[in-house]
């Protein structure tokens, strides 16, 4: 049987493609510079203030037989994490140097990178959202269709995902329901949450909008949620990239660069 013929269709609009890659660059810098900032006080708390004696998460170093030992405390559990968290590269540091921007310790430089790219991230997000809401991208491509939301269909999608089976033909023309729900959660949940929890940490913004930190249970809670949301974004990216790799990396990447996506004729 000859290989099925494929046709190129237009998949992603220009705004989606441009903002996607700017977003990737901004999030990368924000993550690495954010970890640099975190290293200035690698501990997390709930509430308005820091309870220094009992952070719910902290990375610190101890000494054993003249050697530095990295320790991670989560709740009341302690884990030895030498080389990764608490102590790495022969020095006391929460997050290792390969995961921070800059790699050497500099809170001032970390903040500069972070706030410049925070603006880029926020403005880029605004462009994407306004274009997506006005141009119909959100309604057309991201809101699940009624037929996708039946329990039967969702169960099938979960089974297909588990077996890494994805449509290559007509079915690939639209996002599947799990994909749509995930994108919606990230775009309208996680990313705005990063902005709001970030702003909650600003003492200047707090004066004008005191309800902002209160919304998250206080400034230190906002900082904690900022950190957890960053972790969830990393998790999303890992799964997102894995899905791109298993579902056809060349086709997916091309569609996000040139907009053109190949679908196989005569296949689901």
């Amino acid at each position: 049987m000859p290989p099925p013929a494929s046709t190129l269709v237009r998949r992603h609009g220009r705004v989606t493609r441009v903002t996607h890659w700017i977003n990737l660059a901004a999030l990368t810098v924000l993550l690495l510079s954010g970890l640099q900032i975190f290293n200035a006080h690698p501990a997390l708390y709930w509430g308005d203030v820091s309870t220094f004696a009992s952070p719910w998460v902290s990375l610190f170093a101890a000494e054993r037989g003249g050697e530095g030992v990295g320790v991670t405390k989560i709740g009341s559990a302690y884990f030895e994490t030498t080389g990764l968290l608490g102590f790495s590269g022969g020095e006391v540091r929460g997050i290792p140097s390969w995961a921070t921007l800059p790699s050497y310790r500099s809170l001032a430089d970390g903040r500069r990178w972070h706030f410049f790219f925070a603006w880029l991230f926020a403005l880029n997000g605004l462009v994407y959202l306004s274009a997506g809401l006005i141009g119909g991208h959100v309604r057309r491509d991201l809101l699940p269709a009624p037929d996708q939301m039946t329990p039967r269909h969702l169960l099938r999608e979960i089974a297909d995902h588990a077996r890494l089976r994805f449509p290559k033909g007509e079915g690939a023309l639209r996002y599947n329901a799990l994909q749509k729900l995930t994108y919606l959660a990230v775009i309208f949940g996680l990313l705005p949450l990063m902005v709001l929890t970030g702003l909650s940490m600003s003492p200047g913004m707090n004066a004008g909008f005191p309800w902002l930190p209160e919304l998250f249970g206080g400034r230190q809670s906002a900082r904690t949620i900022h950190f957890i949301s960053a972790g969830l974004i990393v998790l999303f990216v890992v799964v997102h990239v894995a899905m791109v790799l298993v579902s056809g990396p060349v086709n997916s990447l091309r569609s996000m660069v040139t907009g053109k996506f190949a679908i196989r004729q005569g296949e689901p």
Partner: protein
Amino acid sequence: MDRRRWLSGLTVAALGGVLGACDKLTMSAGVQRGLARAEGLTRRVQRLVVDRKALAQEFTPAEISPDFRANGSTSPGDPEYRALVEGGFADWRLVVDGLVERPLSLSLAELRAQPARTQITRHDCVEGWSAIGKWSGARLGPLLDRAGLKEGVRYIVFHCADTLDPNAPPALGRYYESIDLIDAYHPQSILAYDMNDAPLAVKHGAPLRLRVERQLGYKHAKYVMRIEAVADLSGIGGGQGGFWEDRGYEWYAGI
């Protein structure tokens, strides 16, 4: 096995290359200038969306932190300061000068007789932690009015008694800070002499520290000796408006 080692070696080398490039970028003056532009944008937008007189959130006595951390200088070794501590700050005077009509020199008792304000606020350190404390002090605005600011004053500079970086030349090693007139005349901007109903402890900046509640902790200069009204910041310290600002931190620390 060899291939795995080769691959991991390659990964480490590539990562090292990227890290090195990022560090080089960070250290380049042009990149620093570019990134620092965001600070001006942040300041302008915050000033646009937050009312000039908007008060920082205030808390109840029950919320006061029992473990308010002190950092930066916590026990200055400067001989002049040590002598003041020995004398119970009896010889301490706050000097108000620079571009003012009537330079002042005030004792602690005189300062305590000034229009005052008490507030329970949250202190946010640039490092990321927060603590709530109760502060009482002389309001900065009325004090500046008493001295009478001359035409052209744009910033108020706070010169401190503590040397935080003994390895730097004195002009750069001594702590100082500056704020603009919007924050200087903000109702919560006070020169605090009491913390949690007791005279300020040495580690928290005795006998006097600035509270500028809508900015991060490093703006709240401790051990204040002299207040100077100036038209620009270029001639002071490293020229960036403060000890930490001379070391790359934002002058506008509302974020």
